[in-house]
C-alpha cells in the first residue's frame, strides 16, 4: 500500500494507524503535528485513523523562524 508522506510516495507493508506509523518512525508524539488528507488530526484521534491507499500524510513541527 502506498501513501504520500511529507511529499514523497512510500510503501507501507500493511494497513496501520497513524499512531503506529508515528511509533515506527520513532517520533516524539509531543513535538509533532499531523495533517492527514489536508486536515489536522489531533492526538486523540491518531489511534482511530487507519492509513489508506494514496492517503496524504504530513508530519510537521514548529521550528525557529522570523
Amino acid at each position, binding site marked *: 500500500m502506498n501513501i504520500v508522506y511529507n511529499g514523497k510516495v512510500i510503501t507501507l507493508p500493511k494497513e496501520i494507524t497513524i499512531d503506529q506509523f508515528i511509533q515506527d518512525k520513532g517520533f516524539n508524539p509531543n513535538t509533532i503535528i499531523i495533517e492527514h488528507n489536508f486536515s489536522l488530526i489531533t492526538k486523540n484521534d491518531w489511534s482511530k485513523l487507519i492509513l489508506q491507499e494514496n492517503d496524504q500524510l504530513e508530519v510537521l513541527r514548529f521550528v525557529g*523562524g522570523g
Partner: protein
Amino acid sequence: MKEVFSVGGKELTSRLLIGSGKYSTNKLIPSILEAAGSQVITMAMRRVDTEFAEENILNYVPSGCVLMPNTSGARNAQEAIRIARLARAAGCGDWVKIEVISDNRYLLPDNYETIRATEVLAGEGFQVFPYMSPDLMVAKELERVGAAAVMPLGAPIGSNRGLQTRELVRILIEEISLPIIVDAGIGRPSEAAEAMEMGAAAVLVNTAVATAKDPVAMARAFGLAVEAGRLSYLAGPGATHQVARASSPLTGFLREE
C-alpha cells in the same frame, strides 16, 4: 505605569517582537525574551526532515508569551492559508504572520497574494499580521480586508541593513490607522529606535539579535532602544534648523564691547 500597546486583541507592554530563527540553540530563547522584555515570538512550521523528529521550539517558549506563527515557505495565498489554519488548529492561538514569498534572492513579499491570504484569514477570525513591501495602496487594501497591523520591511530579511525604506514607512505611519510594525532588515538598536521615533507602533527583530556576538546582550539593547524610541516619539522632538540656535543666553556677556 507602562503604556499599553493594544494590537490583535491583546494588550501588551512591550513593543519589541522577537523572531526565533537562527539561534545556536533553542535553549537561549527564554533568556532572549527576558532580556528583550518581549511578549511576542514568531516561529515557522516545517516538515520533520529526518527519520527522527527534532525538538519542537514551542517547548522553549515561556508560557504567557503570545505566539505568532509565520507562513514562511508559502509561495501563494493558498499555501499561506493552509499553514495558518494548521498552526491555529495545533494550538498556537489566532495570531498569524503572513509571509508569502516567491523571490529567492531578496525574499521580497508578494503583496498581491498577501492581501488575498489576509482577507480569507481575517474572515475566519484570525488576527492577521501581513509582512509586506511598503506601499501605501497595498497597506490601505490590507486595512480594508481586516489586517490587525501592517508589517512593512525595513530592508531584505536577514540583511541587517536598517531602515532603507524609511520614506515609504513614514508615509504608511502617517496615512494608515493600523499599527505599523517594522519587520525585517533592522540590524542595530539605533535603527529600531529610529523606526519607533518616526511613530512605528512596534519593531520585529530576529537576525540582528540571533547573529550578534552576544545575543542576550543585544536583545537587551534592542529592548532599551525600542523603549527609548517610543518615549522620544511621545515626547515630540523639537524642530530642526539649518543654522545654529544658541542654547545659552545671548546677553550679559562677560567681555569688553
